[in-house]
């Protein structure tokens, strides 16, 4: 191969090299151009507008806002020298809504007493729809002499509660737990 041909080939090789390098650089830029293109395509096609927050409802769909149920709180003691009462006597709640109420107990005796609360419901068929998530009745409560305690109940009324039930009475009765009394001295 003579020198003239070699030089000519080398020159055209360099030209091809430059062109291909430009293509490579443009494609590097194209990678970044895909970012605004993607956002635009999502916006135009309505697939998703990445600039808007997701359209997720903040409303709790599990709560039935169309009706209210009255909950009456009742408190009794059985052969026990405690005072026991709800802080609020009644409350209106939506079915499905999580609610917390507080009961107050006071041990009027001068010795520690262990008691256990037992719940009951009126009407009786409401019991299966009344879901207690947290309740002082889940454990025995031991109060020192003259101690006062405020105890929570967290509950949800199942939205499946029959329409005929407008009022539920939640009634607790505290019993002293047998065999826990310590003989003085």
């Amino acid at each position, binding site marked *: 191969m003579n020198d003239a041909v070699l030089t000519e080939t080398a020159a055209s090789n360099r030209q091809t090299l430059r062109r291909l390098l430009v293509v490579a650089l443009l494609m590097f830029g*194209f990678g970044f151009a*895909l*970012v605004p293109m993607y956002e635009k395509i999502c916006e135009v096609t309505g697939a998703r507008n990445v600039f808007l927050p997701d359209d997720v409802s903040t409303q709790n769909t599990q709560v039935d806002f169309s009706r209210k149920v009255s909950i009456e709180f009742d408190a009794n003691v059985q052969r026990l020298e405690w005072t026991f009462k709800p802080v609020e006597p009644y409350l209106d709640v939506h079915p499905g809504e999580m609610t917390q109420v507080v009961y107050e107990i006071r041990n009027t005796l001068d010795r520690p007493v262990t008691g256990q609360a037992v719940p009951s419901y009126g009407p009786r068929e409401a019991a299966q729809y009344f879901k207690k998530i947290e309740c002082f009745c889940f454990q025995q409560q031991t109060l020192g002499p003259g101690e006062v305690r405020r105890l929570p109940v967290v509950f949800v009324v199942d939205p499946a509660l029959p329409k005929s039930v407008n009022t539920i009475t939640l009634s607790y009765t505290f019993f002293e737990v047998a065999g826990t009394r310590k003989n003085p001295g």
Partner: protein
Amino acid sequence: MSAVIDNHGHAHDDHHADHGHPPGLMRWVSTTNHKDIGSMYLWFSFIMFLMGGVMALTIRAELWQPGMQIVQPEFFNQMTTYHGLIMVFGAIMPAFVGFANWQIPMMIGAPDMAFPRMNNWSFWLLPVAAILLVSSLAVGGAGVGWTMYAPLTTQAGPGMDLLIFAVHILGMSSIMGSINIVTTILNMRAPGMTLMKMPMFVWTWLITAYLLIAVMPVLAGAVTMTLTDRHFGTSFFNAAGGGDPVLYQHIFWFFGHPEVYIIAIPAFGVVSQVIPAFSRKPLFGYASMVYATSSIAILSFMVWAHHMYTTGMPVAGQLYFMYATMLIAVPTGVKVFNWVATMWRGSLTFETPMLFALGFLFLFTLGGFTGLVLAMTPVDVPLHDTYYVVAHFHYVMVAGALFSALSGVYFWLPKWTGNMYDETLGKWHFWLSMVFFNITFFVQHFLGLAGMPRRIPDYNLQFTAFNQISSIGAFGFGLTQLLFLYVVLKCIRSGEKAPDKPWDGADTLEWTHLPTPAPYHTFENPPTVK
């Protein structure tokens, strides 16, 4: 035929000049000879192939039975990640670049590649990238999957940074290599070698190199965005800053799908040389082959989101990508038809290169069919990320690309080394590979259909039997490749002297115009092609 004598004589005249290269290791560091560089690419890819293979066997050993056996889940994830990256970027791609370096100048009658110095750089970047990649395991690695999806990558440890830089360097190497290949093919063909007279292997590399120049920079951009998201406060993929992780998948697969064809198209090229040679007939439908390959390359840019059916795409998008993907089966079908038609009424012989080419033809077509199954959106949704996908892409990557590369090595080994390989051992290599490959991967179709997810180190009890079959196959396949190493070493050291044209039906310039072994410098005076 006088060109043979001329070139042979010429090579001998320059014999002293040939050995102007430095002695020892520096010869390989400083070489600009396309044959030296081709050999280095091939050996590099074989070393990476063994390394990726050891990782695959670690995966298969862990999956021998359910529960955690030998590795921690983090390390298992790193193994799947590095196995994928090393096999794609370290083994298969450099292997075909090795073929390109050796063969393209000889097949088009050029003295060397267009930019020999840049060629040296393209190769020597690879070991650097490989060291970066593997050393990232020492700093905690990055078990993020070879696809490197955000947001996992934006939250991974420092191993991820090394991985990103390794991908950058691999990309630079590929782009430089591709520019070299395109320039060589466009500017340095022998007189009379028009584009439509080029051997099919050269055509496939011209198309592949264009694909590489177009998509490697996009991958570089994607990992650069990951890097700036990690360290420089950008929010390309960070939803908290207004970015979108799904965007990463779009950019990645805009690179990733053409990448599939970057691996497959040179494999088509090798097979398009081997099948005519052993059928003793010219390639059937040469022009349709060129057009089919070009259409595959163009279509490969338009189908990327078929990897993303489960990202919540609009139905119109899913339909478009489904039909566009199925469209690729048409030009691919043309190619398979042409290979079969080339063999039709040919006088066939079944030496090792032909066996591997036929293995390619059968198994690649099978992998293509499972690809069609996965192209269908409603079918893909339950199969997404299951072993069915693993089986599918190993049929096209291993039985497709790797078998084609092995076919090419056996085909050109006599020309490269001057010696014949051991035909009996070659046939053993083929049959063992064929059997163990299918034992390994065929059962994975069933595992995937039964719902076994990929990239998970543990599995449900009922998958045990098929996983054990697959693991046995994997170890058999891995050991068989050591036989290949032995065959190649034996050929180089003590093979029988090969004739200039050991294959009857081979008709490209390296067989018809050059002695065996090919001299260090060839075609300093270009041959004239009629």
